[in-house]
């Protein structure tokens, strides 16, 4: 029992380190898209590991924590996708190291809402 708790606490520590690295990436990366990349990936895994460690620390709380983990896993990529799409639409400058941008080459596609309804 005690070893399980210790493993849980170490996993929580690992998760918090990933969260910290994500924030560090947010500060150090040169342009917006790289920042979003660092922020999303590290914070998703960091939060998942933190909550997983708490499941190991107290197995009675499994249900709600599993819901929370699944929720973070679904929503976090979606929100960063929407953010990246809006940023590209507003022509945020990519960093000077960027070598190719095929989305800008293909142009902005103004979609009307009527054509897209598949229902």
């Amino acid at each position, binding site marked *: 029992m005690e070893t399980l708790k210790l493993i849980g606490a170490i996993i929580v520590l690992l998760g918090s380190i990933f969260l910290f*690295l994500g924030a560090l990436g947010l500060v150090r*990366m040169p342009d917006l*898209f*790289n920042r979003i990349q660092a922020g999303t*990936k590290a914070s998703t895994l960091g939060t998942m590991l933190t909550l997983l460690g708490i499941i190991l620390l107290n197995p009675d709380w499994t249900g709600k924590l599993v819901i929370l983990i699944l929720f973070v896993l679904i929503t976090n990529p*979606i929100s960063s996708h929407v953010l990246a799409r809006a940023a590209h639409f507003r022509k945020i400058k990519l960093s000077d190291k960027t070598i190719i941008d095929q989305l800008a080459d293909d142009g902005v596609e103004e979609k009307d809402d009527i054509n897209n309804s598949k229902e």
Partner: protein
Amino acid sequence: MKIKSFFIITIVLFSVWVLLNNSYEPVLLIIGAAVSILIALIFCTKCSVFSQIKLSPKSLFYSIAYLFVFMIELIKSNLDVAIRVISPKLPINPGIVKVKTVLNTELGRMILANSITLTPGTLSVDIRDEYIYVHWINVEGKDIETATNSIVKKFEKYLKEIYG
């Protein structure tokens, strides 16, 4: 088709309810079933999202395999980000490339795009018809085939079996 969708969404909502309550009292289960069926009736008379899942033992096997592949990729991706962030020279070589996908159901495409966002060095920016535009932190090849092979293929063979 509608009945299958309704059935799956009710099951999903009911399992969410049970996980939230964290107990198996009969009263709770009855209330949960009533609420799930009510919400499914009101909000999902038209939705077709969940009817795209194939229900068969083979797809179940592939889902579990996919989950493992995805977890390994997620951890690899985080180590990758960590190394890039810590190293003082910031070794990046970014660009936006175009990849092609053969999936044509909504749910499969969403899961593919989310997986791309969470795997090493890639972030899906936009999705148009059969192309996904991906911001790649370390561009290895500019043409569609190379990019597709190294970004999409590893997930697609599983997702194709699950969602068609």
